[in-house]
């Protein structure tokens, strides 16, 4: 008996991101497709960053979870195009990130190669609200952070350091 595709999506929504367990794989927007091809369940996943070490863990988690639900005939496919963007993070996912202490991405602020136009204030022109106190008086400490998808920021008001989920 083949479970409905919507049931599979519900099961996948139970899976946390291995590095940011506050949000699920479906919140992150990396599950691009779920469908049956004959008796085979095909789950299509797109990577966040090319070298993100969580990618193989995610594939393993998906396989383990679905096998635990009784799916025997399963294939995972990688899809590169269109490339993952933080625009695919669900509204619910954004809220969960904020509650977890990670400032969610600000849409439309991804780098575009117009280096000089963007670099003037060295990141100071991007107002990232502090996920703890909500103040917008914050500053970037580093363009990178504890995972490929994050940058390091600090709040000038409450003085707490925090992660910012980069717009990508």
């Amino acid at each position, binding site marked *: 008996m083949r479970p409905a595709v919507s049931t599979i999506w519900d099961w996948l929504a139970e899976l946390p991101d291995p590095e940011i367990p506050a949000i699920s794989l479906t919140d992150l927007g990396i599950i691009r497709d779920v469908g049956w091809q004959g008796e085979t369940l095909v789950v299509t996943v797109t990577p966040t960053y090319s070298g993100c070490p969580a990618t193989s863990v995610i594939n393993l988690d998906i396989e383990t979870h679905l096998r635990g639900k009784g799916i025997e005939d399963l294939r995972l496919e990688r899809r*590169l195009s269109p*490339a993952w963007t933080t625009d695919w993070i669900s509204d619910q996912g954004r809220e969960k990130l904020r509650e977890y202490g990670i400032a969610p991405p600000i849409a439309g602020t991804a780098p575009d190669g117009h*280096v*000089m136009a963007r670099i003037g204030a060295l990141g100071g022109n991007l107002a990232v609200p502090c996920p703890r106190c909500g103040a917008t008086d914050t500053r970037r400490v580093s363009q*990178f*952070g504890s995972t490929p998808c994050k940058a390091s920021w600090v709040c000038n008001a409450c003085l707490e350091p925090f992660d910012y989920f980069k717009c990508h």
Partner: protein
Amino acid sequence: MPSLPDIMTPNAAELAKQDGGAGGHAPAPDADQDALVEFLLRMGDNALILGHRNSEWCGHGPQLEEDIAVSNIALDLIGQAAMWLELAGAVEGQGRSADDLAYLRDVWDFRNVKLVERPNGDFGATLMRQFLFDAFHFHQLRGLVASSDARVSEIAAKALKEVSYHLERSAGQVIALGDGTGESRGRMQAALEDQWSYALELFASDGTDRNMAEAGIAPDPAELRGLWDETVGAVMAEATLEIPDSDFAHQGGKQGTHTEHLGYILAEMQFLQRAYPGAEW
């Protein structure tokens, strides 16, 4: 649109061949497959070797934040290398995986430019090299997004997002250190002069490049020079650094003639697979 087989798929080469025959996904019919493999190795090896050089800073960065930045850039580049080399192996059709190509080729089979294999020097020199490469990489990937080969285009689109970020970071750091103290400016100027002739290899086109350009697979690197000059010029002006007045270019890396440094990189990078063939964890 069919996608690349998963890295875990054992028979990637076979699947890629089927894909190639299915239409829509194959390169232009007149593209020379050997030249395409050569081109893909250049893409993969530049990313792999620069990624490895950056990874040497892991745990040794001058500040925690910079240590994290340089390690994350290494991770992006090595991830990109895995995609280019996986495709190179699939097009080659001899069953070689990305890992086989990374860990089991010797120096003369690597196709990276000499710039990326040079020792890191001080952190300013590492940043300068990264910026000179990022500025090229960005414009090259932007051209590759329009490739006639959909497999090339989709990897380029993925990598471009990451490299746009790398460029922004390295440009900002070059400006901060160039237009910094007397000490930092002196070091950045010396790094620029030291690396300039190596950076120019990026634009030295050969038959492989022309073959790729004619097939619409990749832009001719020589034609990216104008865009690169524009980006580099604007950043160096802001950084108060003087661009060397020389067009001499060290060449040969793209064809497999390397400096002595690459051998030492491979000795470290490939040690485990050489000592324990097929080891996995």
